[in-house]
């Protein structure tokens, strides 16, 4: 019986020891939390360039990869130190509410429409995203929507609006709101198969393309700009704003811009540094 009590005490010690071990790593001032989009993280860009920043500055960056809407909410609640996202309208709102400041573009690439190679809606080779969506709706061909308030979802909704089609409340069946990240949407589209809107970075680094191919590209409406937004010190005193400012500056510096431009997957450049950006 005494043995059991002793065992229980040892277990108590083990809990404390193990949780210290688990929590052990740093939460010092040289760590910042970057709330960003899945497209920058899943494409491997952040994994390739942040170690360079950490080496140069000693600042560790914890990447929270979420949809743009969620990333901005995370920052609103005070759970991030810097934001790197791609939805101009949501960003303007974030800055307008007084949460963000010093919003600057760091990189751009473009969105594309992907879909089955068989192309039942005959949109392949087009350069007009709105015309393509109208054809998809007319053919009632399966279309996968992110449905997650991400930057890509926001653009998709704007394009449907331009097309004058209320796909979300329209006839069910062909419009499929999967409520997930870009990768989940591409996995779903590959399996159905269905059309979907994707950012080029995630598409190029995605490994389960299945029957999917790029069908529409080169529409100026499909420009995808990534902005870094610092947090307003008046609302976010608790955040690591000085270290976050250094990352923001670094992303726009020659070194940061070079790292963005040099990042490739299978020999293709995924992101263009914003020095050459169309605004």
């Amino acid at each position, binding site marked *: *019986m005494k*043995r*059991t*009590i002793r065992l*229980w005490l040892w*277990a*108590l010690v*083990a*809990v404390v020891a*193990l*949780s210290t*071990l*688990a*929590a052990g*790593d740093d*939460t010092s001032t040289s760590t910042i*939390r970057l709330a960003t989009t*899945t497209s920058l993280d*899943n494409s491997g860009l952040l*994994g390739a360039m942040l170690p360079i920043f950490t080496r140069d500055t000693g600042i560790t960056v*914890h*990447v*929270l*990869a979420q949809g743009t809407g969620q990333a901005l909410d995370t920052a609103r*609640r*005070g*759970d991030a130190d810097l934001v790197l996202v791609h939805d101009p309208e949501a960003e303007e709102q974030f800055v307008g509410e007084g949460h963000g400041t010093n919003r600057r573009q760091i990189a751009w690439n473009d969105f594309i429409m992907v879909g089955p190679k068989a192309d039942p809606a005959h949109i392949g080779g087009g350069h007009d995203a709105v015309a393509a969506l109208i054809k998809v709706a007319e053919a009632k061909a399966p279309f996968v929507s992110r449905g997650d308030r991400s930057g890509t979802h926001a653009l998709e909704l704007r394009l449907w609006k331009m097309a004058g089609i209320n796909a979300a409340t329209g006839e069910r069946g062909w419009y499929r709101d999967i409520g*997930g*990240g*870009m*990768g*989940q949407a*591409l*996995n779903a589209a*590959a399996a159905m198969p269905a059309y979907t809107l994707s950012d080029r970075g995630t598409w190029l*680094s*995605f*490994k*389960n*393309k299945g029957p999917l191919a790029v069908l529409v590209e080169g529409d100026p409406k499909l420009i995808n700009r990534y902005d870094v937004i610092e947090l307003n010190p008046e609302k976010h005193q*608790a*955040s690591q704003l000085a270290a976050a400012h250094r990352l923001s500056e670094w992303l726009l510096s020659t070194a940061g811009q070079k790292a963005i431009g040099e990042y490739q997957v299978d020999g293709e450049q995924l992101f263009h540094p914003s020095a050459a950006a169309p605004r």
Partner: protein
Amino acid sequence: MDNLASLSAALASGELWHIIGLSLAVSLSATTAAAVLGLPLGVALAVWEFPARRFLIVIANALLGLPPAVVGLTLYLLLSGSGPLGFLRLLFTPGAMVIAQAVLALPIVTALAHRAAENLWAGYGDALMDLGASKLRAVPALIAMGRLSMLTAVLAGFGRTVSEVGAIIVVGGNIAGYTRTMTTAIVLETSKGDLPLALGLGLVLIGLTMMISAAAFGLAGRSHA
């Protein structure tokens, strides 16, 4: 073959070792916490009779199906910078993940320990009391007597924690090199379309879980003999 190539690449990068280590550290911490609290609690619920007892037993059994996503979300709101416990700065740390998983495992350990102790108490309770044991002393005695059942209760709790993703991805944030575990890495690789690597990670996780379970029963069996 594809599996092996991408897995060995992941192993060589050293990142996988960190992921495996963190998975085990978080799940074992949470399970140990749940065992330390849940075993005595479950047994006490069998030994003592008090008005709220039935209610607590029903609650423990009802919470067996506690949804991880709800636990994650609740803990997120509590630990968020704008939440009541934000000052702890635990959000997006392994500590938050341990708490989330301990909450999930506690009802499992408690309910299963109670079930085992109930039978033992019915069979041996009078004998224990005749020998002059107090109810307080009966608790560790029953845990020792039913140690294989208690072990099953703890392993069931461990199984819940090590396989769980819904809670830790919310409160941990799946941060590379810091809060990324086996399960959150599987979700991530699936979202990147790297299904072979995701599946490979899944097989490694299943292998680890089986090894821990076998080792625990091996130890318990030896002390039994």
